[in-house]
């Protein structure tokens, strides 16, 4: 039901062709509004705050559909990060209500650059009025109305909100392989208002990052599902030596391997989401999120790479759609940690569990 309506909505909006268009024009505010009207942005939020209260598994279904359609809208960052964070730390704030209805688009910034990627300490400082410091890899910031930023205030974590076009904000968009942009943002005495502070912010942060990680995994599952469908159609119709290339056993066995990988990924990711759906232990949720992302990244990269090979020379041509899937898989894999990163996280979590 939910799956079918999101699929139809995204097809009517223009389908995969929009992924190409987004390179020039970014994501589409109107489509994001339509998704909000369909309840998508509030799918996991409680009904008391204007959401559908359907939880993480339903959000996973939506994320898969976003992946299948290569929709350029920052749906997972909105559901899991911006809205997920506000629901946890400031459920009564009007900022949350207008985010769920899609009137105000918020981008969530928490990561910072360190010498090896993520630093141990957050350097971004809030002094009660203004924000100073830098954030990195902010998804959905181009086109957003508002920034939600995690910072430190006297060694207490704090969540603040800023108008995206307010003063003291210097944003550098960086283009990724699928045409989307992540922003590095510098804040210099940028006026901001507090939404929440204290340990509730840091606890919520690890929760929403786990959610976003698992939903990015679901989006990847959608990307690889559709890439595999297109590739199977292609090998059934493309003829060489007088027969469809899908009649050759070497192609058949490779196609089967991709299919089996995809089935394992669908089962693994959906089980991880189901476990997170009913689990409140933060460590167990983070562990399942890592399991999901590790599986989804390795599967999507394998399927999209092999899809290029099975398409032959046209697979390398930009005008063929299959390459769009590879590019999206690269971006989603890099975001929030790739397969190797999450295997390491998962191992640590499993060992910590064994020590309990």
């Amino acid at each position, binding site marked *: 039901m939910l799956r079918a309506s999101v699929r139809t909505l995204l097809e009517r909006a223009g389908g995969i062709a929009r992924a190409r268009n987004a390179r020039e024009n970014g994501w589409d505010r109107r489509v994001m509004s339509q998704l909000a009207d369909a309840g998508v942005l509030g799918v996991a939020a409680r009904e008391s705050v204007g959401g559908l209260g359907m939880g993480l598994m339903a959000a996973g279904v939506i994320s898969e559909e976003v992946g299948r359609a290569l929709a350029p809208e920052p749906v997972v960052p909105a559901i899991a990060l911006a809205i997920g964070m506000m629901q946890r730390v400031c459920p009564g704030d009007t900022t949350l209500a207008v985010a769920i209805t899609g009137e105000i688009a918020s981008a969530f910034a928490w990561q910072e650059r360190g010498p090896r990627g993520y630093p141990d300490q957050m350097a971004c400082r809030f002094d009660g009025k203004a924000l100073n410091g830098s954030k990195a890899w902010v998804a959905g910031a181009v086109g957003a109305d508002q920034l939600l930023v995690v910072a430190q205030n006297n060694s207490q974590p704090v969540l603040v909100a800023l108008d995206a076009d307010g003063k003291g904000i210097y944003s550098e968009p960086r283009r990724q392989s699928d045409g989307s942009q992540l922003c590095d943002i510098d804040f210099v005495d940028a006026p901001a208002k507090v939404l929440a502070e204290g340990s509730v912010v840091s606890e919520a942060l690890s929760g929403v990052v786990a959610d976003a990680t698992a939903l990015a995994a679901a989006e990847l599952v959608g990307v690889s599902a559709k890439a595999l469908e297109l590739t*199977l159609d292609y*090998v*059934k119709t493309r003829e060489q030596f007088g*027969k*469809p290339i*899908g*009649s050759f*056993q070497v*192609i*058949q*066995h490779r*196609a*089967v*391997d991709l*299919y*089996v990988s995809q*089935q*394992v*990924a669908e*089962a*693994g990711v*959906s*089980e991880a989401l189901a476990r997170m759906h009913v689990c409140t232990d933060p460590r167990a949720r983070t562990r399942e999120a890592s*399991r999901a992302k*590790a*599986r989804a990244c390795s599967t999507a990269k394998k399927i999209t790479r092999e899809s290029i090979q099975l398409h032959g020379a046209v697979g390398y041509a930009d005008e063929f759609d299959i390459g769009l899937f590879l590019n999206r898989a690269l971006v989603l894999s890099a975001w929030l940690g790739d397969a*190797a990163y999450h*295997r*390491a996280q*998962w*191992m640590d979590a*499993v*060992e910590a569990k064994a020590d309990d």
Partner: protein
Amino acid sequence: MTDWNALSDEAFRRQVRTFFETEYPEELRHLPHRAKFAEIRQWHEKLYAKGMVAPAWPVEYGGMGLEASKLLIFYEEQQRWGVTRGRDMGVQMVGPLIIKFGTQAQKHYWLPRILSCEHIWCQGYSEPGSGSDLASLRTSAVIDGDYFVINGQKIWTTMAHDATHIFMLVRTDPRATKKQEGISFVLAEMNQPGIAVRTITTLAGEDEFCEVFFDNARAPCENLIGELNKGWAMAKTLLGFERIFIGAPNLAQNALVQLRTIAQGRYMFNDPVFRDRFAKVALDVEDHAALYTRFADQLKRGETLGPDVSMLKIWVTETFQEITELMIEAAGPDGGMIGPLQVGNVGIDVLANFYKARPTTIYGGTNEIQRNILSKAVLGLPE
């Protein structure tokens, strides 16, 4: 007679678990080889007394009559405790065929003897020239009065040297136009002058498989199950429920536990390269189990499994092999040692695991044959 299906799934699981844990002999847990009947006779007698020899058979034939969910639980508990399958070819293979296609007289004669293990069965399918292409089999059975006269050779016959009877596919009409036609399903007694058995020593050093030679061996015509020349289609119906078990997670799960033990004992988890490879196979096992659950749920809902169930076998057997290869790496310079390696206070037989993993991608239809099945029947790729 216990009405097992009247229990809740959880109550049934507890009963089965308690029975295994209290009654199953400790020294037979997780046997690394296929047991001969003499080794496990006492265990069989306990099962027999409880009416638990044939979990899947209908109650009227002496089985437990378990519904699908309880059948899965039974096998899960059996695997969890490392309980031997026993000499189950009779119960698993020939019994269900007799129940489905046999005459009243055949059921009356054969089924009780399968349950009591008065008859121990082996399966005569593969031949030297007919492995993956099983339908090309050539061992012939010619009717001579009241008897079939059988000539030819079977191979990879598991435990034929410890069997009293063989059920086999034989060619009864060599002139049939398609190779799948003209094949019949016949039962024969092993102890007769026309049958000779030679064991085949495996890479693991075990005598598990045999060659069986037929030189004018005889079987009474009443040993034909089902119709003459229709044995192929009949034998294929067996491959329904059983196909999920060949893809069950337990082999890989057990190996993973052993890999973890040996890796801990040898401080391998300090090595980031090893950690990554361990995490990869561990997640391969975990996500396979999630997929297995989906198929098991289909069975529990009373649905029939489609050809897509083949994917379970492909994934789990290849993962099992990868795990045993990692065990050898973790063993370092001891990787070539025969027998158990002492790790802390447990012994782990690295090579036995490695060898045990090899035939899993070959038996029950090689993984290449499984890929052919998926390609045609599931993905619809062209001929």
